[in-house]
């Protein structure tokens, strides 16, 4: 007989990304200690086999499906009964814009204390099928690119010899000299700060579940003693062989990144129209191709001192998009404004401007910084100002360019050059794509939280008792997934206002009049 009302708490949120048997075993083994993510029906992807890298990337960077367009009768009915839907909070967006309904989404990993991911995934089919270390790459992206340091990543090693065999395979194909400790060197390349934990599923001794439990128990703070192999690892990385390791790591990562970029491209295209500004046609074309997967129809030659503007919004209407050229700064601003207007009419929620910083030519006294500033000034009075994002894309890596860009209105600054120190070496356009995806996520996530808050305010009497609880959970979720420090400087106020709205529900409870006022004010400001 129990003599108390028991209530378990303090469990850790854990996400397991692995094959079903393995995932179920881990969840059941840790049942007492963890909270599993809410089950969501995984969308059936007809283009990819479940369990492949392609399928994994689409789950990691999911794009919500477009809602079915209402038929003409339905639209007419809606227009009759809701002639001015923006005036009322009753008309809340029904579709989820962000990706928080996808528990596996990389953007949501911040909500978990631990993410446990399987190391090896299959890529391709039939004879072309290869095994790829997607688990290492995705863990690396989350930690070293997104900067989600709080969530502990645990890699389930299903094949301890995979790294060596893959490295040997790559070195044979590329005729590279294989370093003797290639496995450790590769691990160091993916996790130079030893932030990940590896659980070898084939190792004898303590069961993997027990080892994961120990990690969860100690919050992943296991004492790491330096071994001889660690010393060797550092010595090797400083030698001339590090170049080969870098090449092997690139080759290791490339297939996964290709799949990830396809998913990211889809994600960005789903949310936003992208306008690219550059004075180098070749670079513009490359960037555009990376963002849209399409090639531009380039003019035979570009006049000296011209700046080209390409917009992804024309993709739908034109078989092969062209570029607009501006010879003066005024023209450039006008073209950008026109592109923004076209983008707004295109039905996408956001318009993102990607601009180079320095323009070539004796007539150009202004730079991309001036463009950023002018666009921000012009947009200040525009109703859709909050739906615009600006990314500076430059080969300059000086802190002064970065600082100036941020101050004048850039959400993010991305380097065109290949970079990689602690993180993996990555092309500038790849970084740009990820940055745009992250910017879209930030905006859509905040919008979705506000939309949910509106739903709580409009809840019926019977649901109101739980509105506060839900609001509290939404606020907590917001702070976990998108902490203040990760938000773009130009989204800070939006982030603060969203928090305020959710906190107001907690304070006012069911006082609909007061909450409606706050909601309408914030909604009018951003949505």
């Amino acid at each position: 007989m129990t003599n108390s009302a028991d209530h378990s708490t303090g469990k850790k949120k854990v996400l397991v990304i692995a094959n079903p048997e393995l995932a179920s075993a881990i969840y059941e083994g840790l049942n007492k200690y963890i909270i599993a993510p809410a089950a969501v029906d995984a969308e059936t992807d007809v283009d990819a086999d479940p369990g492949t890298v392609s399928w994994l990337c689409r789950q990691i960077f999911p794009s919500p499906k477009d809602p079915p367009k209402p038929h003409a009768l339905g639209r007419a009915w809606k227009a009759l009964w809701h002639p001015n839907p923006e005036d009322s909070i009753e008309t809340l967006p029904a579709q989820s814009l962000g990706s928080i309904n996808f528990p596996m989404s990389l953007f949501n990993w911040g909500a978990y204390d631990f993410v446990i991911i399987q190391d090896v995934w299959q890529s391709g089919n039939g004879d072309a099928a290869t095994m790829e270390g997607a688990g290492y790459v995705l863990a690396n992206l989350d930690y070293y690119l997104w900067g989600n340091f709080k969530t502990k990543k645990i890699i389930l090693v299903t094949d301890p010899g995979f790294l060596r065999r893959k490295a040997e395979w790559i070195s044979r194909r590329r005729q590279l000299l294989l370093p003797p400790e290639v496995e450790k060197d590769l691990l160091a390349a993916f996790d130079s700060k030893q932030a990940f934990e590896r659980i070898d599923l084939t190792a004898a001794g303590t069961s993997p579940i027990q080892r994961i439990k120990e990690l969860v128990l100690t919050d992943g703070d296991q004492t790491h003693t330096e071994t001889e192999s660690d010393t060797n690892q550092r010595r090797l990385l400083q030698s001339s062989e590090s170049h080969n390791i870098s090449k092997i790591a690139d080759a290791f990562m490339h297939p996964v990144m290709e799949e990830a970029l396809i998913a990211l491209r889809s994600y960005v295209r789903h949310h936003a129209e992208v306008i690219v500004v550059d004075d180098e046609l070749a670079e513009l074309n490359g960037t555009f191709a990376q963002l849209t997967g399409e090639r531009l129809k380039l003019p035979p030659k570009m006049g000296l001192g011209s700046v080209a503007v390409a917009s992804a919004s024309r993709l739908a209407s034109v078989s092969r998009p062209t570029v607009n050229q501006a010879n003066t700064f005024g023209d450039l601003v006008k073209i950008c404004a026109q592109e923004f207007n076209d983008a707004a009419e295109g039905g996408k929620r956001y318009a993102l401007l990607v601009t180079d910083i320095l323009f070539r030519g004796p007539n150009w006294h202004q730079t991309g910084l001036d463009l950023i500033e002018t666009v921000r000034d012009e947009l200040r009075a525009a109703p859709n100002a909050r739906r615009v994002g600006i990314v500076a894309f430059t080969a300059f890596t000086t802190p002064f360019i970065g600082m100036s860009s941020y101050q004048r209105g850039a959400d993010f600054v991305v380097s065109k050059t290949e970079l990689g120190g602690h993180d993996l070496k990555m092309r500038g356009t790849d970084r740009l794509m990820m940055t745009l995806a992250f910017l879209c996520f930030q905006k859509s996530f905040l919008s979705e939280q506000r939309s949910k808050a509106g739903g709580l305010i409009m809840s019926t009497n019977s649901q109101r008792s739980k509105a506060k609880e839900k609001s509290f959970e939404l606020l907590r979720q917001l702070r976990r997934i998108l902490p203040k420090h990760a938000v773009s400087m130009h989204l800070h106020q939006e982030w603060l206002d969203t928090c305020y709205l959710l906190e107001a529900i907690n304070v006012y409870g069911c006082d609909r009049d007061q909450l409606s006022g706050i909601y309408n004010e914030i909604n009018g400001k951003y949505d």
Partner: protein
Amino acid sequence: MAVIAINSAEFITKSTENMIEDRLNEFGIYRLRYPLKNFEIVLDTRRATITFEVGYDNEAWPNLASQVANSDQKATFSIRLDKFKNFEEDLEVRHPSSTILMSSLRRMADNQESINNEAWREALGRFTFLLARYANKHNGTYHVAVKDLVLWMGVHGASTAWRIFYDDSLNFEHRYDLLRSAQHSLSQSDTRAEREKIALDAPEQKERQLLWWTTFCKYDLARQWCESETYGNPAARHALRESALNYLQVLKDEARQRDLRRFLTEGGTDLEHEVKRILFPKWKEKLPPPSLFSPARARPKPPTRRLFQRLKDRIRGIPATTADRTLDLAKDEVIRRTFFVWFLKRYAWWSAVKLILSDSKKDRMLIAGCTFFLFVILGAGLYLIQIGEFPRIARVLPPFLSAKENTPFLWGMQVLFQLAALISVLAIAPLLFRLLMPRALFGSLLAWCTVIFTALRDVHELRMDEGGEKPWHVWQLCHTCSDTQALKYSLLISLGILILDSIFIAYAVTQFTDGFLSTVVRTLSTLAGLLAGSLFWGLIFALPIKVALERDVFRFDCSCVIPIVLIGASIAVLFGLMVELIWQDQSLAEPLGEPL
């Protein structure tokens, strides 16, 4: 090969059901288990206690776990929620229980799950409230713990809105807005509850304390907001003014003053300190808490200044602390009038003077004060000449100032100077005149005029040893001893009377003041002030009383004047006190009528 698996819906549903299970058994005991840490929190709703239990195999807290011998034992620490005695005794003394508490708090805050059980929410809410006040008192270790705990628990309505104060992720404006509305709704419910329950006299202490605390947090938040605004923000200033007035109103008008005082004392502050914090804010003077980058010992010592410089700075410092650039509450007429009396009622003389000197007419007050003291010193000088205490000085004085021949003239001049002192104050700064004329001063004048003068005839007639051989008059007593003896006896008698005076004053002072030291200081300073006032009249009336008593010439020719001044002044104070204490609701220090 591999297919992704999140989890089975069945498993999740079961897990969720376990989480939100809300069963209360017949014993009213709830257990909150942290299976990861072998740590439990037990809530006993009947005894209103929260107990933290650390198991023997707790890997996170090996130090604590090592104190436990076997699996049957647990390191525990209990806190009484209802019968909470005081913070120090309940939280800190019982080492290593305090270690358990700190670790437990950290563990609780580092929790992704929120508490949905109402009993737990209520109990932990009360505990957090206690802890927040304690952290305010000891602004150190507990402050971080409280902040984390509060953020974990979140806000669930107006009664918990004070937690927003700790939420840095919202900006000041939003936080202030939410706190204001929460306080508004709390005060409304409080008033309603008061109206409903006034007949039963059943005060809801918890609700009141929540209202006080919310008001306190609101003011502190507004103040932080103002301090964070480098170039001044009208909204922040408005918020500060509004919250300060609101807080002052609570501090002044709260019907349950004792309760409020106790509440504030538990939080490491007191009523007067809070009022002074609002009226005389010291901006940017608060030292930052010691950190690795600014250790306390590394702070440079202020340079040693000369006394004159210090005095000068102090005088200059009065407008700097009162006439604040952001909040000029001390200059507001209503505030000044209200809180001047409020301070006097508590015998906080310096604060009252500070408040008055914050007025723009403080120069005139200073001139009036100086003139007053100048005339009083002149009067006292003439008195000393009359009694012939300083024969060397008397020798160098001109003939018309000779005490032997010109006593009526000198006495007249002395009275004139003393009256001129009062008149000058009345003419230059009438406000200061009202300050110098508190009730007890008038009381002593009343005693001199009515009681002492009317008793003179009886004292003159009073004969001792009337049935004996040599009956003698009481007024002749001081003629039988030397001046020194007369002074000694007079001082002895005066001391007895003054002790009685101080008992009466202490009785009045302790009505509004806690603390032994402040009571002693305020009692003695009040007594000194009253005695000075009474001596003021005593100097004037000494000679007439002596003449009336002895029916002698109008001159200081014996030592009778010593007991007359000393004992008379003490008795006048006593009579004055007794007269004033009849007005039960008034303080001795309070002015008559409108002070300002």
